[in-house]
């Protein structure tokens, strides 16, 4: 299994479980500040202890994203970062770091490519899986089939608002992991810790051993440490993106984000229960 991209992701989760920690998956929009610099920033994050990545394919109308990731998407689009260029960034990150990479996007660009064609391209780029923020389980069937056909994973979501019937449907679809939404809201930094994490993790765990990855509203080492005992992975997005947007150069961004990811990575070692 380990010689495939999806296997690479599964080994990452297995390793983290063995080591009693939670995998750290930073998010960054592809192509900010530019394509080459974003590859360097991913490399710096790998050096600093990231276990894998979520790479955002910029989209003009991201309903699940707050102002920071929206601004990053707009900036990337202004620089001409298309889906194909973003997938090329993913290929370079996979090459460069050897870490599993999830491609994150929205439904419409996938449809425009053709669902099968998109998943084929994502697979060719070396992505381990695809995250589609506005794809609920009820519409997921053709996407699951396309992912299975090329042997990569599709991620499905569980939110604090998700009821038991929907959670059952998510689990039954056998996603590569469950993206457990830690906060009711769009992506963005929160000052307080989520109080949804333990409960949501328990509800998923009582049904399945599927890997659980927390995301949305996790932006500090403290929040990572609180989430770590309950899941297999944690995604930190806005806090990374903001540092990149605020940096004056790609090199400064790589330094700054590298330092930040090192702190997060230490926090992710918090012992699992």
């Amino acid at each position: 299994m380990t010689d495939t991209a999806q296997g690479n992701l599964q080994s990452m989760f297995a390793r983290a479980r063995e080591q009693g920690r939670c995998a750290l998956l930073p998010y960054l929009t592809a192509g900010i500040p530019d394509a080459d610099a974003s590859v360097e920033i991913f490399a710096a994050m790998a050096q600093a202890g990231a276990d894998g990545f979520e790479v955002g394919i910029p989209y003009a109308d991201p309903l699940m994203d707050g102002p920071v990731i929206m601004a990053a998407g707009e900036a990337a689009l202004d620089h001409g970062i298309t889906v194909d260029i973003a997938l090329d960034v993913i290929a370079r990150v996979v090459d460069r770091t050897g870490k599993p990479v999830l491609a994150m996007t929205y439904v419409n660009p996938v449809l425009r490519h053709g669902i099968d064609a998109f998943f084929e391209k994502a697979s060719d780029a070396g992505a381990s899986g695809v995250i589609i923020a506005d794809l609920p389980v009820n519409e997921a069937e053709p996407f699951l089939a396309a992912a299975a056909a090329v042997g990569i994973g599709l991620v499905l979501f569980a939110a604090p608002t998700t009821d038991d019937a929907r959670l059952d449907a998510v689990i039954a679809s056998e996603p590569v992991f469950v993206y457990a939404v830690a906060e009711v809201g769009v992506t963005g930094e929160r000052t307080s810790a989520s109080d949804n994490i333990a409960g949501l993790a328990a509800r998923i765990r009582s049904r399945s051993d599927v890997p659980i990855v927390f995301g949305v509203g996790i932006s500090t080492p403290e929040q990572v440490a609180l989430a770590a005992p309950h899941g297999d992975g944690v995604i930190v997005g806005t806090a990374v993106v903001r540092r990149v947007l605020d940096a004056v150069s790609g090199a400064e961004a790589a330094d700054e984000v590298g330092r930040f990811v090192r702190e997060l990575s230490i926090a992710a070692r918090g012992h699992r229960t």
Partner: protein
Amino acid sequence: MRLEQPDGRGRFGAYGGAFAPETLMPALAELESAFVDAWADPAFHRDLERLLTTYVGRPTPVYHAERLSEELGLHLYLKREDLAHTGAHKINNTIAQVLLTTRMGKPRVIAETGAGQHGVATATACALFGLDCVVYMGEKDIERQALNVYRMRLLGAEVIPVTSGAGTLKDAVSAALRDWVASVGDTHYVIGSVVGPHPFPWMVREFQKVIGEELRNQLDGSPGSPTPDIIVAPVGGGSNAMGIFYPYAGDEGVRLVGVEAAGFGIRTGKHGASLGEGSPGVLHGAMTYLLQDRHGQVLEAHSISAGLDYPGVGPEHAYFKDEGLVEYASVTDDDAVVAFHRLSRTEGIIPALESAHGLAWIVEHAAELSGATVVLNLSGRGDKDVQQVAAMYD
């Protein structure tokens, strides 16, 4: 064939559905069952009827525009949604949705608005029921529909400017959806047209079809009230058009024409003709026709009329287009402004710029329609547009 309701997945044929963040999905299911329950409840209909009659002023009249009819050589009738309380058809939907909100026990309402008519109608219904109301409105629209911004604030609503994208209706809908992702526990999103994820397109159609149902009674073929040969309505998101078309869709002998915004002209690429020029995709939670580039990025629309300045359209219109139940055409900014003046001068009725698009199509096709009974859905009044049009002549 016209569908009573979308299928189990919320689809009208290939269109519709619910493509939304998981966080919202349970609220959409809750809304669907609350709507189904209310719509089957005579008490809900009684409450709604009473408000539509005594508060909104329904039924709205059908007016035979004789002077303009004579000039155009046809029989022009206006369905006077401009005479509904707050000045547009939007109130039909907001009163019903806010009534439903109180049934669901949610204390807070959010809405998007383009022309500001839906924002005003939502703020009005919230004032009536004592609910908190937040309206998202694009920066550009705040500028061109300043009167309605002031009206919303008078009614106690908070108007939040949206600066992302082009600062128009699409961005306002997105901002409202983002708010709803965070506030879904205590908040209902009163969407302003037959757009958005299931069950909104179906529910808003049900709340707007009162327009066409009234028209059937008003123009019933009795002496002095000929049945329509053709019904024309402007299409932004498509709610006023759906409201007047739906009861007639599939009827032999009635031609239905939806008029989109051609903006600066279709060939300039600066328009809002999603059905005419767009292609299927997903926008704001529904599969529908939309303006997009070859990478699947949604494009910015353009129209002089804020209510038609939208790169998508309700999914049931996409279905009607494919089924051939409705024809969709478009009219430029310039022609709409000419029609705006013409109705004002000839009939003493200042139409909304949105509605003026419908009239402009009729004027353009008058020769072909000679002698026909033509109904225009006069979706709203033009007070909100007076400043904008006046500025064009300064």
